[in-house]
């Protein structure tokens, strides 16, 4: 009994000793660990300093600028990621050979690369290429050259190249709009980059995101334009062909959907000629076509006879002449106005009806009726058609055109305006005014962007501007159809669609204000189609065609309008006759 008790006592002593030993060992271990931590923190070994002191990595989270899309949602301009190649000369392994290594990887000349490194603006940042091709970026990544880096940046891509360049515009290096729609719609397209801060472990692997120092990126909003790229393409091609055929200084063309006011196409071509004395120029287009001004909105021109329907409608609406009224238009050389001004006609018809005056584009007939209107009546009528005001279609630097002020308005102005002179209009103003004849006498609200909501359409309907009565609009359309059959417009007649239109041939004004060139012209043609239920209005202006090749509006610009009408209506699925 006693020995058993002693055995048990010895056993428990051993256990206690072991337990004490274990506890003591644990305490010693913890003390050692604490000591090591203290050593690392207080004394700080250099080789651990880099890992402990810089665990955070911050970078920009790039956002995407909004897309520009066309009427059918095709992409006109979109942003994608590109890479800028840079070198940090202080981190390069072998400065003597880095240029050769880079040139071997991506192509290029080593001496040029060396120069870029030498002429760098910052000691640790030398840009070698602002934008690499995708394969070049892949090669650089794979090469793992020390001191060579790829900096992501946004690149604006225009899949259709220079199509509608002046309408679309371009962005600068900082990806903000510089011109055209990119600039006008900057507030909608603009993006906001975010910021991403990540805590990394010793092997630079991401551990966690620092929520306090991280902001989400915000992409820009897409903008849908009313331009249809297919229509734009053949308008641009046809216009360019006409400009080169007639060796003109340039040309402009617009296709307008007259009921909705949507601009389907807007083309502007310049053709610098070696003979000099060109009155049209836009040198910045040599840098980038998208930086050029949009001459359909910015450059007014004298419309010539294409303006006659405007005055004809105004006079008819005011009851100054009836369509069947016979006017004393001359059979001789010229007509003399009440103030002694001589008005000449291209062809002499003798006395004709007011209707025939428009069909045959008779200057003297227009002057006779214009004298029946007061100066205020003429001026107000022209203003009602939107001239002297911007169309506010959403284009940068739009011009309001030029109209003689009320104070300077004379009898000469009155009779000149009747023939489309002494007034300068933009192509946008012209199509909008002509569209009144394709509608119910009201002007459409021109727009370059798709409507946001049906409420926009309702608001536009309520605030329509009336240019002339509905009956007069219908009458003008009828007379202009006759002009296409019997008048100057017959050269532009379409076999597929019935059109109503008017040609114009105006002398080119001298840029110094000293009158007109005697043998240089602006040839234009404007038409609507189909006649029964007009859908589009098309205007073509050919600036300063070479006289020896042709200068009459009906022959130079008329066929362009006809071809554009044919192709556009076919594309839109309108049945031909």
């Amino acid at each position: 009994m006693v020995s058993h008790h002693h055995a048990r006592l010895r056993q428990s002593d051993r256990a206690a000793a072991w337990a004490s030993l274990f506890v003591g060992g644990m305490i010693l271990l913890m003390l050692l660990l604490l000591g090591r931590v203290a050593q690392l923190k207080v004394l700080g070994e250099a080789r651990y300093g880099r890992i402990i002191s810089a665990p955070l990595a911050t970078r920009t989270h790039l956002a995407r600028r909004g897309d520009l899309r066309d009427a059918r949602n095709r992409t006109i301009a979109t942003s994608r990621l590109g890479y800028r190649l840079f070198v940090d000369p202080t981190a390069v392994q072998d400065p003597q050979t880095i240029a050769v290594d880079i040139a071997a990887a991506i192509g290029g000349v080593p001496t040029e690369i060396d120069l870029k490194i030498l002429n760098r603006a910052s000691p640790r940042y030398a840009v070698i290429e602002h934008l690499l091709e995708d394969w070049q970026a892949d090669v650089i990544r794979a090469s793992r050259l020390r001191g060579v880096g790829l900096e992501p940046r946004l690149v604006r891509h225009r899949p259709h190249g220079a199509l509608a360049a002046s309408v679309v515009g371009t962005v600068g290096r900082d990806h903000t709009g510089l011109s055209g729609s990119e600039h006008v719609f900057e507030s909608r397209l603009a993006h906001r980059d975010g910021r991403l801060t990540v805590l990394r472990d010793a092997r630079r692997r991401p551990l966690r995101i620092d929520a306090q120092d991280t902001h989400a990126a915000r992409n820009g909003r897409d903008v849908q334009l009313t331009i249809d790229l297919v229509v734009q393409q053949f308008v641009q091609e046809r216009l360019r062909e006409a400009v080169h055929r007639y060796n003109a200084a340039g040309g402009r063309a617009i296709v307008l959907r007259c009921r909705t006011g949507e601009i389907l196409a807007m083309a502007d071509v310049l053709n610098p000629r070696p003979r000099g004395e060109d009155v049209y120029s836009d040198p910045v287009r040599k840098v980038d076509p998208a930086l050029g001004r949009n001459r359909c909105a910015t450059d007014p021109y004298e419309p010539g006879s294409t303006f006659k329907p405007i005055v004809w409608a105004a006079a008819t609406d005011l009851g100054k002449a009836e369509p069947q009224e016979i006017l004393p238009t001359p059979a001789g050389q010229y007509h003399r106005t009440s103030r002694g001004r001589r008005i000449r006609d291209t062809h002499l018809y003798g006395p004709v009806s007011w209707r025939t005056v428009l069909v045959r584009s008779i200057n003297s007939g227009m002057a006779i009726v214009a004298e029946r209107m007061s100066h205020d009546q003429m001026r107000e009528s022209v203003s009602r058609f939107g001239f002297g005001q911007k169309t506010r279609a959403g284009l940068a630097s739009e011009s309001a055109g030029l109209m003689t002020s009320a104070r300077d308005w004379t009898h000469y102005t009155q009779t000149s305006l009747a023939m489309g002179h002494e007034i300068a209009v933009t192509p946008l103003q012209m199509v909008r005014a002509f569209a009144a004849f394709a509608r119910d006498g009201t002007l459409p609200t021109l727009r370059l962007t798709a409507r946001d909501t049906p409420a926009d359409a309702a608001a536009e309907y309520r605030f329509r501007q009336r240019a002339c009565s509905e009956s007069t609009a219908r009458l003008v359309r009828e007379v202009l159809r006759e002009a296409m059959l019997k008048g100057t417009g017959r050269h532009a007649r379409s076999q597929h669609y019935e059109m109503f239109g008017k040609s114009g041939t105006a002398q080119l004004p001298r840029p110094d204000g000293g009158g007109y060139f005697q043998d240089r012209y602006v040839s234009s043609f404007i038409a609507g189609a189909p006649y029964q239920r007009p859908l589009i209005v098309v205007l073509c202006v050919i600036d300063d065609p070479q006289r020896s090749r042709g200068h009459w509006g009906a022959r130079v610009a008329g066929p362009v309008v006809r071809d554009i009408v044919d192709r556009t209506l076919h594309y839109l699925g309108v049945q031909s006759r």
Partner: protein
Amino acid sequence: MSAKLLAVIVVMGAAALTLLLIRQLRIEASACSARLYQRLIENEHTEWKLRSEIAARSRADELRRAMAKLGGSWAPIPFEAAGGDQP
């Protein structure tokens, strides 16, 4: 007595290990989340690139070439069927 002491140490050790394990799991979840966020950004950039390529390949002239290859005759959708003159 020693057994109880041992038991306490074991339990405390187990608790500490569990806490360390939970901490490690949390760190791994954060790391996974951070990696996923970066992958999202990379996928976004890939999407931009694909959008740009699709836009380039769906140009009118490219489509005409594709239509020519397919053969047959093509006609536009009639105007009224396409929505007429609705904006």
